[in-house]
């Protein structure tokens, strides 16, 4: 299936602006990992994920499990661009009573299928969804996104091993390989090496892509969607803070709101 790349790039840009705006408005949040993930997420929602805008709770929808739940602004920006949540909603991010909780939460937000916030759990949850889909003989696919630092959690590998054993070919994972975690670069905290090879050795099909190249993204998502020989992993090489020059590859913007001046500069850069 071929897609027009241009509209996807435009949507990603709008999402980036939403991300910066909601974090600036909340005076807290995680811009770096939201900006690194957004291109892949736009590709996923616009070309691969099977859902119904008019019924986000449709039983046979594909599930998307955002395991790196701190990158919630990325999800809220997409749900806003899809008109599922309003501008007011995203600007209430992290405030008392907001549908946009600090970390994505299925109890609070339509269109969210997982209550995240504690790293390492999303792949297990996706595996549960995948096993249930197989028991139901449903064609729904399960997509999970994790961070690269998140692979330091042992539970990821418990789930990776189990998915391969249970042959959940309906389960796909995307690793946002932005090389920065909370405290510092992954390489300075505890380098995790070749994540693709690790998944491969656990019995997964893998593909490595440039996570900011929309053609590669769409192509890899299409591959994962149609490969039925086992669970699939897409390792997306990304840049933390991508799209805002002073946030790019800068560990200090993992979980920090821009100042007034930085906000203006970021919005100018994003056009």
């Amino acid at each position, binding site marked *: 299936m071929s897609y027009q790349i241009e509209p996807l790039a435009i949507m990603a840009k709008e999402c980036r602006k939403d991300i910066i705006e909601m974090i600036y408005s909340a005076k807290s949040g995680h811009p770096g990992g939201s900006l690194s993930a957004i291109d892949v997420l736009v590709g996923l929602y616009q070309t691969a994920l099977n859902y119904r805008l008019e019924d986000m709770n449709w039983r046979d929808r594909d599930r998307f499990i955002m395991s790196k739940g701190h990158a919630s602004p990325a999800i809220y920006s997409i749900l806003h661009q899809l008109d599922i949540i309003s501008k007011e909603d995203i600007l209430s991010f992290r405030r008392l009573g907001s549908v946009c909780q600090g970390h994505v939460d299925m109890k609070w937000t339509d269109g969210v299928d997982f209550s995240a*916030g504690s790293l390492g759990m999303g792949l*297990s949850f*996706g595996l*549960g969804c995948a*096993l249930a889909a197989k028991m139901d003989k449903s064609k729904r696919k399960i997509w999970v996104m994790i961070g690269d630092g998140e692979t330091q959690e042992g*539970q990821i590998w418990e789930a990776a091993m189990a998915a391969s054993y249970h042959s959940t070919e309906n389960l796909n994972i995307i690793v946002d390989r932005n090389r920065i975690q909370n405290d510092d670069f992954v390489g300075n905290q505890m380098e995790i090496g070749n994540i693709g090879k690790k998944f491969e050795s656990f019995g997964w099909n893998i593909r490595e892509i440039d996570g900011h190249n929309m053609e590669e993204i769409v192509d890899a998502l299409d591959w994962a969607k149609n490969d039925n020989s086992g669970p699939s992993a897409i390792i997306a090489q990304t840049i933390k803070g991508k799209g805002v020059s002073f946030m790019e590859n800068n560990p200090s913007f993992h979980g920090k709101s821009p100042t007034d001046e930085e906000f203006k500069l970021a919005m100018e850069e994003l056009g």
Partner: protein
Amino acid sequence: MSGISTGGASRDGYGKGLLRLAEDSRVVVLEADLGKSTKSHHFREKFPDRTVSLGIAEQNMMIVAAGMASSGKIPYASTFAIFTERAFEQIRNGIARAGLNVHICGSHGGIHTGSDGSSAQSIEDLGIYRTIPNMTVIHPCDDLSAEELTVLTKDLNTPSYMRTVRNKVPRIYTPDDAKKLKIGKGSLIREGSDTAIIACGIMVGIAHEASKILQADGIFASVVDMHTIKPLDNELLRELAEICGCFVTAEDHSIIGGLGSAVSEWASEEFPLPIEKIGVKDRFGESGESNELLEQMDMMEDNIVQAVKKVLRRKKMQS
């Protein structure tokens, strides 16, 4: 209540309960290698397509169960009580916080587990799960009540934790009496107006024996099987408090955080009265026979008798 007879262990009741639940096609069973021990293997043998084996990986199992619950299944996940604790944060964040009705069974609870030693003797599970919002916490006293309570969990609108035990204990219930049990409603095993012994798990039978010894001394104690630790049956506690004016609690669990704590929390706010607690007094166990350990920890019939006499003296001093 009719006569006590030797029955199975409460884990056997869980296994039988699962088989009865199988008629609902949404019910699925998850195992982390210990199905033969928790007794979920009976379900696996009959319904392999609805059983998921996840290896020795409890954290993964709990969240796989959560994912299945979010997809319309009613998952029953079991392992040893102590190993459910390894996945506490998964249960807290991934199951209860997300509002997913996963039913967890921790078998081999308490020091009664015996010779495996302290690493296998969960004495804090009831306490930690009681702290989780919306979680139902159950600890049956025999196999027949465990079977009925397991069947009843399916219609709960909350996640649940049920602790079962490894070893056989005398039956408290007849099959007909067990069918009358309701989650959240304590069961009055024996009526007496001097004090009430509020017990759970294996301590219900021991409390029942103690009440007979007390009766010979002219002391009449109510005995309650408080199989549901959360939500606690406050209504029954109030009735008994008004009649008896003092309580003894008895549990194979740390006296910090479990049934004794729950009853004391209720009493301190609703009906202050003297309470004595029988349980594991802030220490770890060791290898040994169940009865040896109960004796070592002052959790035998005589200990309950002494606790009742003490609490009656305290009641008298207050009046």
